[in-house]
C-alpha cells in the first residue's frame, strides 16, 4: 500500500461526487500532505488529475486494484519560489553517475510513482528521526520535486555533521531519465 496521510472513501459514487468529496477532504490536510481517494467511478482518474492541476494540487498517480481506483493527491503543488539557501548544489544532469547516495526527500507516495533508480526514500518530515540510516562519510545528493524541500533537508544534514551534502537542482520535475516505480 502507498503511504498517505488520509483516506477518502468515494467508492460507488458517480460524477461529480468524487471531486466534491475530494475538495472537502483536502481542506483538512496540511500543505504537502497526501490524500488517498478510493473510487469506482472510471472517469475519476482523468477528472481528479484535471481538478488537481486546476486548483493547485499535485496529482501523483493512480493504482488500480480490481474495480477500485486508488488516486493519490498531494496538497498544494505550487511551491513558492524561495531562495535556495544551502550553498552546495549540483546539477541534475549526470546525477546518476556520481559516487554516493541519492536521497529523495519527497513524500513516500511521490517516490512510489517514480524515482531515480537506486535513490533512497526518506520524506523530509521523517529525516530528523532517521539520520542513523545515513553514512556521514558518504556523499549525499538530496533531491525533491523542485529543490525546495531538498534545500531544507540538506541544511538539516549539514547541521547534523554531514559534510559532503549537495542539493540537486532543479529536481524530479525536470528529470527526463529513467524512472523506477514501486507500484
Amino acid at each position, binding site marked *: 500500500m502507498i503511504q498517505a496521510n488520509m483516506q477518502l472513501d468515494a467508492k*460507488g*459514487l*458517480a*460524477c*461529480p*461526487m468524487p*471531486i*466534491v468529496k*475530494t*475538495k472537502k477532504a483536502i481542506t483538512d490536510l496540511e500543505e504537502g500532505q497526501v490524500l488517498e481517494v478510493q473510487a469506482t467511478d472510471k472517469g475519476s482518474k482523468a*477528472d481528479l488529475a484535471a*481538478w488537481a492541476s*486546476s*486548483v493547485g494540487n499535485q496529482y501523483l498517480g493512480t493504482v488500480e486494484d480490481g474495480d477500485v481506483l486508488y488516486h493519490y493527491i498531494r496538497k498544494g503543488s505550487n511551491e513558492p519560489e524561495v531562495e535556495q539557501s544551502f550553498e552546495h548544489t549540483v546539477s541534475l544532469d549526470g546525477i546518476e553517475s556520481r559516487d554516493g547516495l541519492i536521497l529523495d526527500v519527497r513524500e513516500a507516495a511521490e517516490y512510489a510513482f517514480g524515482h531515480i533508480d537506486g535513490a533512497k526514500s526518506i520524506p523530509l518530515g521523517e529525516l530528523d528521526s532517521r539520520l542513523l540510516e545515513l553514512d556521514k562519510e558518504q556523499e549525499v545528493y538530496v533531491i525533491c520535486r523542485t529543490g525546495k524541500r531538498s534545500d531544507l533537508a540538506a541544511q538539516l544534514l549539514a547541521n547534523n555533521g554531514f559534510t559532503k551534502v549537495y542539493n540537486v537542482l532543479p529536481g524530479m520535475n525536470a528529470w527526463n531519465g529513467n524512472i523506477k516505480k514501486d507500484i
Partner: protein
Amino acid sequence: MSKKVAIIAANGGMFDAYKVFNIATAAAASDKEVQIFFTFEGLNLIHKQAMHGLEMPAGKEHFAEGFEKANVPAIPQLVEMAQELGVTFIACQMTMDVMGLTKEDFIDGIEVGGAVTFLEYAKDAAPTLTF
C-alpha cells in the same frame, strides 16, 4: 484565466438538470465562482415542487434504472450541494412574471434578476454554458 463560470439553464427536464448541476458543482469544487441563470422551463429545476418530479425525455424513461444503478445523486441533493459550495442561483424575473410565479415558489437562497444581471456577471466569465 477566468475564475468565473456562467450557466444558463433554459430547459426543465431531468437530463437538463443533471447537465446543469453536475457542471456547476464540479466547477464550484474546482474553486470557480459559479452563477446559474434559470429561465423559461429552466425554472423547474429550482421550483420547490417541480424539482422533485422532473421528467425524462419521452421514450427515454428506461434510463431511470441506469441512474439508480450508477448511484447518481438525486437532483435535490445536487442542488443542495451546489448551494453549499457557493453556487449562486438567479431566477429570471421576466419568465416568472409570464408564468405567474413568485420568489416563494422557489427553493430558499435564490436571487431574482433580469437579463442584464446575468450579462454583467457573464461578461468576463469563461466558459459560459447554455443548457
